[in-house]
């Protein structure tokens, strides 16, 4: 029996916290070592290079007054290219309409660029405010000196410094030269704006890419192009861990437009979170020729040890193993005693299938390898990570690798893995062409880093006082860690953190156990990760607990949350404490008061308890993930075996809400994303291969059956901001199941749901 002693850092890469010192230091690197990170260039003879005020790596202001803010995080639909730069712009007092947003290359000078785990705003809100405020203070200092007035009589707005008393104003551009000569203020001198002075933070700001997207000008990875570019389509081994025995390229090369056929050597097992699968690539003049060439290609495979894998059989086996004693992961009190003295015991097993990300843009990347250098255009969530892997695979210094981050046509965790980028780079190196690798939809469905299937058994006990006296949660799923170490059989503490060992309810006996589940596929992470099956099991079981206690489901949860308090779990967790999404529990406590507040608010908004016609009902679930508190109510109208979802209600507390419209859109989209796996999607394996091929076999929700109205309430807060990309997902499916139960009397223990 083995499980990885890792933590969330290993799953989600480093949680690097840039301090003010870090980014100022970084700024000095950028500006060629000039003191304190302030750089200044005169116009050259051609006038091509304007002078720049560059107080930190995220901001430059030209003498032309143009404010450029670096978007160093990846845009994949969450709106971060808009929402993080606006934080800096607000503190600076920039004219947002005229701010230029520039996508950053992969570079440590920007700090963490791994766009994953719903932490962009959480990690960079403060540094971006400080970056903006620092620049503002320097511009104000320059203006005040010019005018011979006190700095505290000056303010900024619309990219100008204003002196209210005299009515004077001067543009940022005119201050660039003077401001650049000033010393960067000490940390203690930085004065952040008062909340009531925010112009952008806390309001609804449209995304900066809206027009380009609507007019077809937005450039995704699959749209990248350079002169002389060729297209590669790869035939990959259908079973993870298999390899190429031999291949015959003759028929492929006979297809007009096919140029080269090149083998890509895979790592075998472990498949890793970065390397390409074993396969044979067809490089052609265009995508169609490459696809036709691949069809004609003949490959003999050694399918390896996973060739007999059958996912239905694995589920059947896991249903048996979760009945046994597992490895204790969190223990409070004595569950055995609680069960022995219980008045009522409820026990169920919950099953969820493998899922594919199915981003609308399939993986695609363009690489040019020339003169010992590599240049890549890729839709990557993790540009620095991709660069590091390329350095290793190509045997190059990191400094010789340039990663341009395009827009992502969806990410959801898939595009944090650079395997498809490595394919492009290896093929570019081998062929000498600039190569764009394009995955077809079938490739994407067959060869994803899947969200792994899950089998969980929960035993809840109710005592003679009608209290929930015991909670025993058994969990089995192939671990993400097994993708890099095949000996790992049980979930890591990082995976258990995602909605299992942070079980937040006041129950005297808690026993959370895990069981072996061997991985036969590439397991990755998908939007909210293990929160999906863990929240499903917990929140649907708690609905049954409410019924058994004769309580309203909302009142039951409020009761189980108990008094207002900050929870800690660390001392009850058997393997190394509670990771708390990479933050200390002191900085980001688990506050029951905030959870109760969102629950009460959503109940109010949904008019919980209202009478609905027969066949219609409301269902409720609440789940905290990625440090954000979420409560959800789903309204259903059940017609036989189908369901309409007229309304979804969310209340959430993510601390300070930076861009309210993008928070709402993440929750709207999160409900739809969850509706897909709750009602439609499943990946199954037979003989080691994925059974589904495209959107006919692997279904995602379509407009007619999708939730019709999604109401999102953001709690007013000045607390530190937390993530919103993933938190809407976990509570939706259990709220839906609870609603279907309320409408039909049928409990649902398996996703996608049938009743």
């Amino acid at each position, binding site marked *: 029996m083995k499980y990885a002693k890792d933590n969330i850092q290993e799953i989600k890469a480093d949680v690097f916290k840039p301090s003010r010192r870090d980014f100022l230091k970084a700024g000095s690197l950028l500006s060629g070592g000039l003191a304190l990170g302030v750089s200044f260039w005169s116009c050259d003879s051609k006038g091509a290079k304007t002078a720049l005020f560059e107080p930190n790596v995220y901001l430059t202001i030209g003498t032309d007054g143009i404010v450029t803010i670096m978007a160093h995080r990846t845009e994949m*639909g969450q709106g971060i290219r808009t929402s993080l730069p606006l934080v800096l712009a607000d503190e600076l007092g920039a004219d947002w309409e005229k701010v230029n947003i520039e996508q950053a290359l992969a570079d440590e000078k920007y700090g963490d660029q791994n766009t994953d785990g719903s932490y962009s705003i959480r990690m960079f809100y403060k540094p971006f405010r400080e970056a903006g405020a620092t620049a503002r203070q320097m511009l104000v200092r320059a203006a005040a000196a010019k005018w011979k007035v006190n700095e505290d009589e000056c303010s900024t707005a619309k990219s100008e410094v204003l002196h209210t008393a005299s009515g004077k104003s001067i543009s940022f551009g005119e201050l660039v030269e003077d401001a650049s000569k000033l010393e960067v203020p000490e940390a203690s001198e930085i004065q952040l704006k008062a909340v009531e002075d925010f112009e952008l933070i806390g309001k609804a700001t449209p995304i900066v890419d809206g027009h380009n997207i609507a007019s*077809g000008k937005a450039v*995704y990875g699959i749209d990248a192009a350079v002169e002389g570019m060729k297209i590669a389509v790869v035939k990959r081994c259908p079973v993870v861990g298999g390899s190429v025995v031999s291949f015959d390229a003759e028929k492929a090369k006979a297809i*007009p437009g096919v140029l080269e056929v090149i083998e890509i050597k895979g790592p075998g097992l472990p498949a890793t979170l970065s390397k390409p699968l074993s396969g044979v690539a067809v490089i052609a003049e*265009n995508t169609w020729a490459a696809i036709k060439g691949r069809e004609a290609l003949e490959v003999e495979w050694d399918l390896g040890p996973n060739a007999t894998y059958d996912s239905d059989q694995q589920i059947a086996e896991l249903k048996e193993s979760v009945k046994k004693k597992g490895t204790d992961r969190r223990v409070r009190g004595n569950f055995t005693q609680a069960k022995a003295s219980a008045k009522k015991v409820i026990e169920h097993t919950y099953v969820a299938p493998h899922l594919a990300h199915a981003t609308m843009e399939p993986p695609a990347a363009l690489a040019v390898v020339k003169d010992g250098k590599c240049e890549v255009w890729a839709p990557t969530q993790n540009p620095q990570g991709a660069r590091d892997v390329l350095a290793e695979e190509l045997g190059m210094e990191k400094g010789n690798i340039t990663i341009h981050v395009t827009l992502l046509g969806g990410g959801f965790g898939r595009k944090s893995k650079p395997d498809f980028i490595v394919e492009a780079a290896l093929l570019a190196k081998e062929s000498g062409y600039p190569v764009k690798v394009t995955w077809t939809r079938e490739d994407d469905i067959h060869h994803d880093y899947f969200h792994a299937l899950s089998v969980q058994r929960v035993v809840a006990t109710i005592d003679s006082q009608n209290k929930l006296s015991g909670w025993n949660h058994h969990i089995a799923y192939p671990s993400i860690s097994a993708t890099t170490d095949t000996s790992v059989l049980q979930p890591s503490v990082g995976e258990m953190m995602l909605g299992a060992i942070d079980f937040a309810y006041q129950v005297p006996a808690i026993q959370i156990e895990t069981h072996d589940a061997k991985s036969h596929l590439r397991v990755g992470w998908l939007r909210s990760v293990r929160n999906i099956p863990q929240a499903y099991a917990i929140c649907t079981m708690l609905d049954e607990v409410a019924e058994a206690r004769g309580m309203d489901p909302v009142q039951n949860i409020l009761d189980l949350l108990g008094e207002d308090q900050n929870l800690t779990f660390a001392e009850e967790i058997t393997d190394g404490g509670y990771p708390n999404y990479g933050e200390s529990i002191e900085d980001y406590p688990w506050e029951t008061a905030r959870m109760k507040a969102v629950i009460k608010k959503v109940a109010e908004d949904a008019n919980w308890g209202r009478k609905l016609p027969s066949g219609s009902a409301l269902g409720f679930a609440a789940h905290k993930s990625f440090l954000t508190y979420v409560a959800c109510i789903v309204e259903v109208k059940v017609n036989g075996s189908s369901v309409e979802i007229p309304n979804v209600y969310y209340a959430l507390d993510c601390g300070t809400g930076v861009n309210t419209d993008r928070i709402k859109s993440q929750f709207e989209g999160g409900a739809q994303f969850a509706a897909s796996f709750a009602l439609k999607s499943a990946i199954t394996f037979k003989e080691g291969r994925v059974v589904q091929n495209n959107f006919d076999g692997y279904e995602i929700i379509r407009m007619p059956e999708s939730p019709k109205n999604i109401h999102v309430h953001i709690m007013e807060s000045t607390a530190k901001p937390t993530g919103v990309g993933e938190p809407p997902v976990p509570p939706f499916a259990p709220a839906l199941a609870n609603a279907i139960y309320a409408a039909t009397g049928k409990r649902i223990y398996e996703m996608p749901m049938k009743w």
Partner: protein
Amino acid sequence: MAEYTLKINGKSYTTNAPEDMPLLWVLRDLLELRGTKFGCGAGLCGACTVHLEGAAIRSCSFPVSAVGSQAITTIEGLSENGDHPLQKAWQEHGVPQCGYCQTGQIMNAAALLKQNPKPSETEVEKAMQGNLCRCGTYTRIKSAILSVSND
């Protein structure tokens, strides 16, 4: 291989392509009109939607040899400056998240409104059911379309 002269967005393009090459790849790879997106290659997701004589087709499953002299409109040609009422509504309603499927959504919606300028909510849902959005922007797509049809 054959030579095709295609009428796209009011312009004439001549290109050599095998007759079974889907219009999608002619547009994207041969003519560098990349606003039309590849999603599934099987007519299942609608990301590649363009107009053929004003009607929505899935260009990923439409061979170039079947186009003939019929006029094609892609997202690049839907309006002069990206200011078709739907393109404006898409921005006003903050529809796009990642945006990848949205050119196909807009082309499909534009064909719908040409056929049926005042669709009901149910008619919109039915007409748009072939266009997938993984980010889940369906509620805003619907309100953007209805806002244009109500103008």
